[in-house]
């Protein structure tokens, strides 16, 4: 059984159908890059998997748990799937350490001492052990995004969704974040990431999904998708971005 099963998913915003029947199955340990033009529905797809958007048709399940739009099912799903955002979305009133501790304590009812140990470990893992007491606005964008990754990891998810996590970063900060992601991938974390980093997608991902006008237009291993694009849309997309 696949870890994430996306079956015939459709999503409309008013009259605008942004997802027109998406089918993707993700195996445990796979790293999936979702590429495509803006407006192709890639971010929406990711947000649907986490229940931030409701789907109109089809089904999504993660490790056997169905995505249903009530708080109980959503919570169960979100404990399995972490999400990292383009804008970091750290809690600005809490230190980096507290950011990582909060959801453990509030959602999982982990005792404070334990949560703190976990937070230290996770910040260490993203190379920010020394920033435990720093507030988000004292950190660079790259550091903030790494704290956000640590925060998601502290919930011990079985998969991570990354929504353009390097798009808001200065170019020199992109690599430190991608390095963390790469390490996660090598440790066997299941990842689905919407990205514009084509080189990263080629080097790290096991499969690449090219979305176009709300559909999966092409899907395959990176060497195939990048080296021998089949459709004119993908050719054009790759031509534009290279």
């Amino acid at each position, binding site marked *: 059984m696949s870890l994430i099963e996306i079956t015939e998913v459709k999503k409309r915003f008013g009259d605008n159908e942004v997802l027109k029947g998406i089918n993707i199955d993700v195996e445990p340990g796979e790293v999936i890059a979702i590429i495509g033009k803006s407006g192709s529905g890639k971010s929406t797809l990711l947000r649907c998997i*986490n229940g*931030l958007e409701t789907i109109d048709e089809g089904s999504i399940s993660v490790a056997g748990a169905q995505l249903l739009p009530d708080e109980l099912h959503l919570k169960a799903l979100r404990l399995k799937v972490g*999400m990292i955002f383009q804008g970091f979305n750290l809690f*600005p*009133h809490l230190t980096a350490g507290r950011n990582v501790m909060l959801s453990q304590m*509030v959602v999982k009812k982990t005792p404070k001492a334990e949560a703190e140990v976990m937070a230290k470990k996770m910040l260490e893992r993203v190379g920010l052990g020394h920033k435990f007491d720093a507030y*988000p606005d004292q950190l660079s964008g790259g550091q903030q995004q790494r704290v956000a990754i640590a925060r998601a990891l502290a*919930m011990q998810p079985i998969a991570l969704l990354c929504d353009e996590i390097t798009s808001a970063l200065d170019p020199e900060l992109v690599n430190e974040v991608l390095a963390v992601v790469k390490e996660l991938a090598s440790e066997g974390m299941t990842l689905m990431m919407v990205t514009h980093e084509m080189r990263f997608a080629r080097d790290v991902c096991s499969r690449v999904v090219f979305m176009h006008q709300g559909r999966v237009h092409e899907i395959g291993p990176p060497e195939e998708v990048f080296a021998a694009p089949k459709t004119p849309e993908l050719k054009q997309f790759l031509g534009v971005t290279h």
Partner: protein
Amino acid sequence: MSDFTTWDILRNLLLSARWTVLLSIVSFVGGGLVGGALLFARIGKGRLGPAFARTYIELFQGTPLLMQLFLAFFGLGLFGIDVPAWLAAGVALILWTAAFLAEIWRGCVESIAKGQWEASSSLGMGYLQQMRWVILPQALRIAVPPTVGFSVQVVKGTALTSIIGFVELSKAGTMVTNATFEPFTVYGFVALIYFCLCWPLSKSSQILERKLNVAHRNH
């Protein structure tokens, strides 16, 4: 006719100013509690809660406080209920304050970036947990300066209760004037006392705003 010294005038005004202060505090605290409940109704999911809160707020913001005082004072009288002036004054001011505070606070809560809701959702937090740990702590910081600033309006609002016969600072001013025939001195003092009550509030609102420097610092 007896003579009144300046001290006589001032002393009587100051004594009555206690009622202005008390009424202000009661209105502000009571209004804050009711306003908090209204806030949750206003921003909650459901349909009845927001509709009720919106109607309430529009009604109280869309009519003069004076009318609300009259309605509280005379309105219940129509049903044979004898409402003392202090009660009508307290109730009307609490309800009026609540409407404005709820709206001020709603603005603060809604000014918190959507990403904060999404991030806390994606970590598995429920609505109340998000509110308690993520949204309200940030909103509170933003809310402090306008809330303190609004307390000035409450203090000045209490002056209107003199019309339904509640003896606070303004009413005492009128009564003392009637006895002394020195309106300029008396109302001068009345204004001065109001100023002494309000100015520190305005000033502390400004200081808090700078101190919390809401736009640029988040901790």
